[in-house]
């Protein structure tokens, strides 16, 4: 059996419109509710982040206080570094003259002797890979030209002693073949002590 709607069409239309308006209003309220819920979620999140910031700031303040308490040790470290630097400056370019004398004694041939010796440091000059730091000069006497030659070849065996040169060899006594000669040599940075080259070893770690 079929149903027949006996409502007039204008009332039916008004009912449809009211239903649609109600649906829109309800949908709108739901939307506004969702927006409000999202807002509250954001507000809650903000409060959480602010709490985290506060906690972080407290942690940072605590670390800063520890740092302040440790600051004198940093000053001490700086002072120690400056002290080592000062010592490095003091010993810069140092050569062991006692070692130079021992080396000279070691290379002197047995049938010869030293008459005079001058060792001096100068302002370093660089020539290629080599840094010259001073000069060495000595006068000596030896029996026979072989001894003279031996001596000059031995000079170069010493680390940092380079360019030995004999300008003249004079025969002082021809019957004994005694020769007198001056030797000049250059000193390079290899002749310097470790601390003279800036290595302060254990001082200040």
């Amino acid at each position, binding site marked *: 059996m079929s149903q027949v709607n006996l409502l007039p069409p204008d009332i039916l239309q*008004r009912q449809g419109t009211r239903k649609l308006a109600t649906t829109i209003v309800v949908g709108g309220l739901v939307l506004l509710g969702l927006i409000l819920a999202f807002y509250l979620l954001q507000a809650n999140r903000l409060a959480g982040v602010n709490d985290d910031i506060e906690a972080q700031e407290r942690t940072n303040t605590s670390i800063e206080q520890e*740092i302040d308490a440790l600051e004198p040790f940093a000053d001490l*470290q700086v002072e120690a570094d400056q002290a*080592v630097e000062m010592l490095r400056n003091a010993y810069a370019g140092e050569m062991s003259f006692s070692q130079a004398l021992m080396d000279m004694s070691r290379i002197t041939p047995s049938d010869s002797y030293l008459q005079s010796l001058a060792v001096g*440091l100068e302002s370093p000059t660089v020539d290629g890979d080599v840094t010259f730091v001073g000069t060495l000069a000595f006068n000596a006497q030896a029996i026979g030209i072989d001894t003279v030659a031996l001596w000059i070849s031995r000079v170069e065996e010493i680390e940092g002693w380079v360019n030995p040169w004999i300008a003249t060899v004079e025969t002082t006594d021809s019957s004994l073949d005694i020769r007198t000669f001056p030797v000049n040599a250059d000193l390079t940075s290899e002749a310097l002590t470790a601390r003279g080259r800036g290595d302060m070893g254990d001082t200040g770690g």
Partner: protein
Amino acid sequence: MGSRRAPLLAAIGVVALALLMFVFLVLPKMGEVTEAQDELSVAEGREQTLLAQRQALEVAEAEAPENEATIAEVQSAIPEVADEAGLMILLQNAADTAGLEVSQFSISEPVFNPESGLSAMTISVSAEGTYFQIADFLYNIETLPRAAKVLNTDLSPSTASTTGSPTLALGATMEAYTSDANPDLPGPQTESASGEEDE
């Protein structure tokens, strides 16, 4: 006619209200959250920096005894004042230990070198002794508790040679140091104090 427009008006009203709420409530709050998160990131980053700083300071704390010893050692090697008297005694002891006969010591007034931050005193020594006594003396100078550096030596036959090992005359120049940046003023002066003095 009016009732037909009601749903449309309701829809417009709802959308407008939703937009207003989103723009004036939600968006600012979201902005605040982003700002707060940035602030938190900065604070967390600062914590890392502070932790690294604290770690470095803890190392410095552990090394404090060593650093104190270094400072004391350097202050002994390079005193804050020239201490000429102490230096003379050290030089004489170095010569006596080596058995060297010193005929003359001369110590110049300290001269400040801004490059090294030190004041240097030039010491000239004239002495007589055997070759190995001279070597010993130079070794004693090189191992003095006070920082000293030999600059040059000149050995020549001595006129007063005796029997046994030949005696040599030694002429040597060396340097000793003080950290006093202005030796003309009494007491120790720091480099900065000296600078102010100059100005």
